[in-house]
């Protein structure tokens, strides 16, 4: 049975699209059939991050409105055979999507793929609500700062009230993914502590992705970071997160902790 995952946050710029691409690619690298769907109609980005922008012909709006068949709009990844992209339209806005049309598209995608990963637009309006509507699982992307945490809290409230699962009295499985975690700023006390973020949002932690040049480089290359540099710290953190998403138990590592001398010694002794 296909799993529908929404990557959401409320706030913009926290790393939803990067995360969608990285998680989608990591799942596909493990042999799963994956489609990543860009719901950010009017401000599409996922195609750029996936390096597929020059091959987009039809998009989500065309399929929702019945102007194109799903198979025509899907862009298959050139590097991983089991990974596909359903791009958003850049020339339209969120009102071009209808709940019925989106339902039809998601149902069709669920037949073809193991994982349907929906990249939500920022905000709490129609676009974000349509992106989360069919979700079984939500990855709530949060930066360790107060504004991002509060917006994530708002989104969790919507996940518990506006999704199809919620209206049926079922729960959407929610996971917290902390991104742009900066060790330097964390040690200087300039960021919220991880345990404070978890305490405020009270949902289970899926992973902590360190702030890294590698993520920026991957975006500019048009390649998910798990693909462009699988050994980098952010890529490893995403791989771990994906294993947890699949239900495996993986020990949580805080990025950069082993960099210090004490950390190295301590880490070795424990290992």
């Amino acid at each position: 049975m296909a799993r529908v995952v929404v990557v959401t946050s409320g706030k913009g710029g926290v790393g939803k699209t990067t995360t969608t691409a990285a998680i989608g690619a990591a799942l596909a690298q493990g042999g799963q059939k994956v489609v990543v769907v860009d719901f950010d109609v009017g401000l599409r980005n996922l195609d750029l991050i996936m390096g597929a922008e020059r091959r987009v012909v039809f998009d989500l709006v065309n399929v929702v409105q019945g102007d194109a068949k799903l198979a025509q709009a899907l862009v298959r990844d050139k590097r991983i055979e089991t990974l596909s992209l359903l791009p958003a339209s850049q020339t339209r806005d969120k009102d071009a999507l209808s709940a019925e049309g989106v339902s039809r598209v998601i149902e069709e995608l669920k037949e073809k793929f193991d994982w349907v990963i929906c990249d939500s637009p920022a905000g709490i309006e129609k676009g974000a609500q349509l992106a989360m509507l069919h979700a079984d699982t939500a990855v709530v992307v949060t930066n360790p700062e107060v504004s991002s945490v509060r917006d994530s809290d708002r989104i969790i409230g919507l996940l518990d009230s506006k999704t199809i699962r919620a209206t049926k009295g079922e729960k959407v499985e929610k996971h917290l993914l902390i991104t742009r975690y900066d060790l330097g700023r964390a040690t200087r006390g300039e960021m919220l502590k991880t345990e404070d973020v978890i305490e405020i949002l009270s949902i289970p932690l899926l992973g902590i992705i360190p702030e890294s040049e590698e993520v920026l480089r991957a975006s500019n290359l048009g390649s998910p970071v798990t693909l462009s540099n699988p050994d980098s710290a952010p890529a490893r953190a995403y791989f771990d997160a994906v294993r947890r998403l699949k239900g495996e138990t993986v020990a949580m590592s805080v990025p950069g902790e082993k960099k210090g001398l004490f950390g190295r010694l301590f880490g070795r002794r424990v290992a």
Partner: protein
Amino acid sequence: MAVLLAPEPPLDAWLVALDAQIARSPAFFEGKPVVLDLTGLPRENPGLAPLIGELRRRNIRLIGTEGAAANWGVAETAGLPALAGAGQGIALAPVSTPAKPPPEPEPRSLLIDSPVRSGQTVAFPEGDVIIVGSVASGAEVIAGGSIHVYGTLRGRAVAGSAGNAKARIFCRKMEAELIAIDGLYRTADDMDRALRGRAVQAWLAGEVMMMAVLD
């Protein structure tokens, strides 16, 4: 125990009076067997069948009749059995004057077993609100009575919203943006910094809001 209902003509007016009583105390007939006292009805054409329909529509559970005329058949009594003296001693006085004043509304509370998220409002003017979890920054809890938060209170808590100066606010960890009791409020800036992060209760002493650490 059974309740005795004594309909009187004109039945339309009697039903209006009955509805008024049900509106005053909606739970009055709940689960109670009801016996119809037919002595007040005309001996010819009592009009019972439509009346019984009306009563059943109001979820009144009829179990029998009293005082039916000897010559009435099934057509007149609509098949309800005659119960001699079934409702004796506990007869409901004429419906227009209730036998007893409507019971005091029961004390009510609302229990919420999950965190209250940013942007959500919990409003319960009828009584106390108990939250097992935290109230997020940007969330709002409004209660007619007191508010109990078994978690961190980061948002707003408005107690005694319907004008109850005795209402209080309790929380396990005080980080509130604003608290108010009976219209008197205090923002985070005006709170004693020593209370931050502590288990706190807030109450009114006359026109002054008091706040103190609980433990």
